[in-house]
């Protein structure tokens, strides 16, 4: 696998696994409208994953997009760990989505400047979707944070619990540095300042307290995951693995 292939897989896997997680809300949303909203976001993310996997597949020349999605094992996935955590209650899902949406928005804005034209075009397309996702999630953060005492307590707890998964957004390993140097990738470190600012803006409106940056989860860039990824993959990959030649 070449450097750029691995670099794109990180974004592709993050969108793919988050999409799979969100799709679990389908038929279980708190209202019909919200059920569809979450499923829509899941489908947008699946579209992003598909575009990126098609590109990796084209660069690779041998492995198809489906094979990337369905034939790799845990240690070969590079998605952020935050995508794997369980949906929990609606507030947990909203906080996870809110923190990722802001990251995606800033990341894609930078990726748009990539000298790789395909990545730049995919970033432009995704940016429109992500802006809407962020509008949806941040509105809910405000509504729940500045809602009843119960909704406030619950979503503050969600925020405190999920915060430790946000450190991975801003890491720079050797591959990130190399891609940045080649003007293909993004400087993740510099995203942190704007991310903090955008997070704070909404948290203030929501009357929520921003958690301190403490211990942060890490490892996904090396394919290290929480125990939850295995369960996601076993469900997501079951059919193509059990029936390798299955056709729609």
């Amino acid at each position, binding site marked *: 696998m070449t450097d750029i292939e691995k670099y794109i897989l990180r974004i592709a896997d993050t969108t793919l696994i988050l999409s799979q997680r969100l799709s679990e809300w389908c038929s279980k949303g*708190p*209202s*019909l*409208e*919200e059920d*569809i*909203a979450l499923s*829509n976001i899941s489908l947008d993310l699946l579209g992003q994953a598909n575009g990126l996997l098609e590109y990796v597949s084209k660069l690779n020349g041998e492995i198809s997009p489906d094979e990337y999605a369905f034939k790799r094992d845990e240690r070969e996935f590079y998605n952020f760990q935050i995508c794997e955590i369980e949906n929990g209650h609606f507030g947990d899902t909203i906080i996870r989505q809110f923190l990722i949406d802001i990251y995606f928005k800033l990341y894609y804005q930078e990726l748009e400047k990539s000298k790789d034209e395909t990545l730049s075009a995919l970033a432009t397309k995704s940016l429109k979707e992500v802006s*809407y996702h962020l*509008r*949806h999630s941040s*509105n809910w953060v405000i*509504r729940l944070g500045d809602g009843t005492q119960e909704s406030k307590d619950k979503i503050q707890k969600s925020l405190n619990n999920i915060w430790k998964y946000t450190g991975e957004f801003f890491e720079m390993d050797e591959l990130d540095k190399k891609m940045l140097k080649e003007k293909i990738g993004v400087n993740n470190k510099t995203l942190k300042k704007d991310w903090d600012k955008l997070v704070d803006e909404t948290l203030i409106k929501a009357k929520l307290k921003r958690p301190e940056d403490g211990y942060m989860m890490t490892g996904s860039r090396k394919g290290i995951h929480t125990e939850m990824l295995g369960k996601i993959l076993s469900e997501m990959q079951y059919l193509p693995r059990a029936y390798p030649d299955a056709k729609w």
Partner: protein
Amino acid sequence: MEATIWEVFIQSKNGLAHKHVGNVHAEDKEMALQNARDLYTRRNEGSCIWVVKSEHIVSSVPEDEESFFDPSNDKVYRHPTFYKMPDGSKHI
């Protein structure tokens, strides 16, 4: 969820009238707009959305039907049906 019902109107293209497409549940206007977007414009149906609280729609009732609408039935002179339509004119 206890929520207000909002009526949804979609404009399919610039310049056309907004058309009633259905309703959504939502707590406030921003949420109503987003829900309407998610429910009714997923397949590229629109360029603009209006949402209006259902309670703000004033409707005639079935009992009014006769007095409202029947009188225009037997007055043919109210309909411009005595003109010869030029060939080639459409959508009139």
